[in-house]
């Protein structure tokens, strides 16, 4: 046991900026609808994201039904299947995960965790949400547009994305998708500026960067990455809009369609792939880093132990963020590239495994001999670690050129990315909701429903995606609505497909229990009090729960320690809040 000598003097820094003045809403509309309070905006972001996420979930059922029982459902034509795949993928990645982690958790947690009254620019923050909502509505509109949504795959690769053979290619579908993405990026940028500036310039007294909870580090780094990665998608979307609307040929080579020479010529489809994946790969980490951060805090809190290797965890987050900008072409091994290029990108890809592995080890070492409480947030956090390791290992396979080439575009890839960026972050989102719901509403979520939800989701996710690895290894390609009579595909694949579909339906319906729980517990949940998990971070120390507009009442918090003082020997409780001056006497600060 390490000897702990509390320091007796801890200088309390003077405030560098006067307390900010908040916008005081005058009406119901400006309080709950056009609110400038980051917490309300967070709830708006989260609800919108979950609502559109439900659409993506339903689409996945439809796809699964088609894969298991081909030919049974008349309305799922091959075109419809492509549209489902595309919308499912794009919604899940961009409109659900990115918006929920950054717009939802970012808005709620950043100001509270760093001890600020609100985001730096509340008005801009509000605009960010409304533009995001517009982007979602535009996206939804494509389901009702003539020709339906685009069926180009979430990667939107040209030339097919804007040609007649692809659903929505020559109709409104692709235009609406690109337009919606551009809106999303504009809206996100407005929010992103807020998150970055608030973390860098708006922290409480005593809150140094190296005292911030890892949640904030994860969201902060992800936001910086998003601000640098979305520009590539923006540019790609603008150029593709021009190709489609004005007849430019940025991405379009000379083409013959139905025996007819098109007017395009001289463009480079590969250029689009580079732009897309310069965005697309960092995007994977934009949803992973907040998850990493949140999971660290969940584990530490529910194992009543400080996070192992805090500094290493921070630097690992930053290193992953930086490295993920130089690996994008591992998505393009099959597009054809110079072998040296492939070598370079395979190497950088594998190097990312180092900081990632550090994080996994540190999580495990945090758990080691901890006082583990198997609360529902903890269960989800543990499930995340297992799932992430699983998905990460198949990532090592796919990062190598020679292994990737035969596996590319098979269901193995689908299994891999669902594990690593589908299931894993979603598990963290659930854990985080169970963890912070008491702060947001003042009541605990129901535990019985919670356990049901957890076990069905966790086991179900494995039942869905484990067999998919095998299906992929046998050679079943992705994005195929139907396998037909194919000699190399064994009978077992068909059986498995039915099995997977049933599992997917069950898991899907378990989410309805979760949604019900969210509403049910609003009224009927157990009263939570201000700090039900006995956690150290600032959001649990607010004067009232749920925190009021301005968060802190009339006195801003002063921070004396890092976020992980659990089970400190000699301390009166098994946690010491960040704003607790123990062992010094509390001082009243102006």
């Amino acid at each position: 046991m390490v000897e702990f000598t509390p320091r007796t003097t801890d200088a309390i820094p003077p405030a560098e900026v006067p307390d900010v003045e908040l916008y005081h809403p005058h009406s119901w509309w400006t309080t709950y609808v056009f609110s400038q309070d980051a917490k309300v905006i967070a709830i708006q972001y989260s609800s919108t994201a979950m609502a559109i996420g439900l659409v993506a979930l339903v689409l996945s059922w439809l796809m699964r039904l088609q894969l298991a029982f081909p030919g049974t459902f008349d309305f799922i034509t091959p075109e419809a299947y492509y549209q489902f795949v595309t919308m499912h993928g794009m919604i899940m990645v961009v409109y659900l995960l990115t918006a929920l982690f950054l717009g939802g958790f970012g808005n709620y947690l950043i100001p509270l965790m760093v001890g600020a009254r609100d985001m730096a620019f509340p008005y801009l923050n509000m605009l960010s949400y409304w533009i995001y909502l517009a982007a979602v509505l535009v996206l939804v509109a494509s389901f009702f547009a003539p020709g339906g949504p685009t069926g180009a795959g979430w990667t939107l690769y040209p030339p097919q994305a804007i040609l007649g053979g692809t659903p929505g290619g020559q109709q409104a579908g692709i235009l609406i998708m690109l337009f919606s993405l551009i809106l999303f990026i504009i809206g996100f940028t407005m929010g992103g500026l807020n998150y970055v500036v608030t973390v860098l310039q708006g922290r409480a007294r005593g809150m140094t960067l190296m005292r911030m909870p890892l949640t904030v580090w994860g969201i902060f780094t992800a936001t910086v990455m998003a601000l640098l990665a979305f520009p590539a998608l923006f540019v790609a979307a603008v150029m593709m809009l021009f190709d489609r609307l004005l007849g430019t040929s940025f991405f379009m080579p000379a083409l013959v369609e139905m025996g007819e020479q098109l007017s395009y010529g001289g463009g480079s489809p590969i250029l689009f792939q580079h732009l897309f994946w310069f965005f697309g790969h960092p995007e994977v980490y934009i949803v992973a880093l907040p998850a990493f951060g949140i999971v660290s805090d969940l584990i530490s809190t529910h194992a009543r132990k400080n996070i192992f290797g805090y500094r290493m965890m921070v630097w690992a987050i930053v290193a992953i963020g930086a490295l993920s900008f130089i690996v994008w072409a591992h998505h393009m091994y099959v597009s054809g590239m110079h072998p040296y290029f492939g070598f370079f990108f395979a190497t950088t890809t594998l190097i990312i495994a180092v900081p990632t592995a550090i994080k996994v080890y540190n999580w495990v070492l945090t758990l080691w001999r901890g006082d583990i409480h198997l609360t529902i947030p903890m269960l989800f956090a543990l499930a995340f670690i297992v799932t992430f390791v699983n998905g990460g290992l198949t990532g090592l396979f796919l990062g190598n050129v020679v292994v990737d080439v035969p596996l590319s575009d098979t269901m193995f890839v689908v299994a891999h990315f669902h594990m690593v960026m589908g299931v894993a972050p979603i598990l963290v989102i659930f854990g985080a909701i169970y963890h912070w719901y008491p702060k947001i509403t003042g009541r605990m979520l129901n535990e019985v429903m919670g356990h049901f939800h957890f076990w069905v989701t966790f086991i179900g996710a494995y039942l869905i995606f484990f067999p998919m690895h095998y299906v992929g290894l046998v050679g079943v390609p992705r994005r195929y609505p139907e396998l037909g009579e194919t000699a190399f595909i064994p009978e077992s694949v068909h059986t498995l497909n039915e099995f997977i579909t049933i599992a997917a339906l069950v898991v899907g319906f378990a989410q309805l229990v979760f949604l019900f729980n969210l509403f049910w517990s609003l009224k009927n949940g157990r009263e939570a009090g201000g700090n039900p998990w006995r956690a150290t971070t600032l959001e649990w120390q607010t004067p009232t729960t749920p925190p009021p507009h301005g968060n802190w009442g009339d006195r801003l918090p002063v921070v004396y320690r890092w976020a992980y003082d659990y089970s400190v020997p000699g301390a009166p409780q098994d946690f010491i809040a960040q704003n607790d001056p123990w062992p010094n006497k509390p001082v009243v600060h102006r």
Partner: protein
Amino acid sequence: MAETTLSHVPPQMRPSGLRGVAADWSSDQRAFKNVSWGKAMMWVFLLSDTFVFGCFLIAYMTARMSTVEPWPNASEVFALHLFGRDLPLILIAIMTFVLISSSGTMAMAVNFAYRRDRKRTAILMLLTAVLGATFVGMQAFEWSKLIMEGVRPWGNPWGAAQFGSAFFMITGFHGTHVTIGVIFLLIVARKVARGDYDTDARGFFTSRRGNYESVEIMGLYWHFVDLVWVFIFAFFYLW
């Protein structure tokens, strides 16, 4: 425990150079001391916008290098027929001169703003806006000239179709930035002239009090747009 000692020393005694940077980043409250939220936001935004322009320019270079058709000769395409002969790049030289000068007037406006010289600040900002508008006007002239000569986003009489595509897209995107800048210059100039920053008047949308720093933040944006133009100029007209 991850300890970071907070040593609070008066600004004049803060370590300088790299040590100062390290001290600031390991301190509480703010990583950039003496940088307001507004200014920090503009810097972060400009970083993001740099990536937008960077992607546009790299895409243009890729298109130009990978096309198999000849690329139109810039010094002929962008020449004006003046005084009985073809002057290569003359229009663009004037445009560049105008825009760079506007950076000068902007810098002077910032200077006077910090002296709270309302009148001169407002006049210089207006002048900057006029120069910016002139730039956009000349760009419109250049576009119409090229369009009359048959340049279209999807093709042109002299070679690779991507010439027109990239030209209209990138100069258009830059011109949009200048136009937005002009609009905001006018708004801020009006606030300066009206004395909003002296009377602590609240913004119409944000209901926050402004101060003369808005002029400097506006200036950051404006210099950035100028700087981007230098790159567009180099890669489009000189290459």
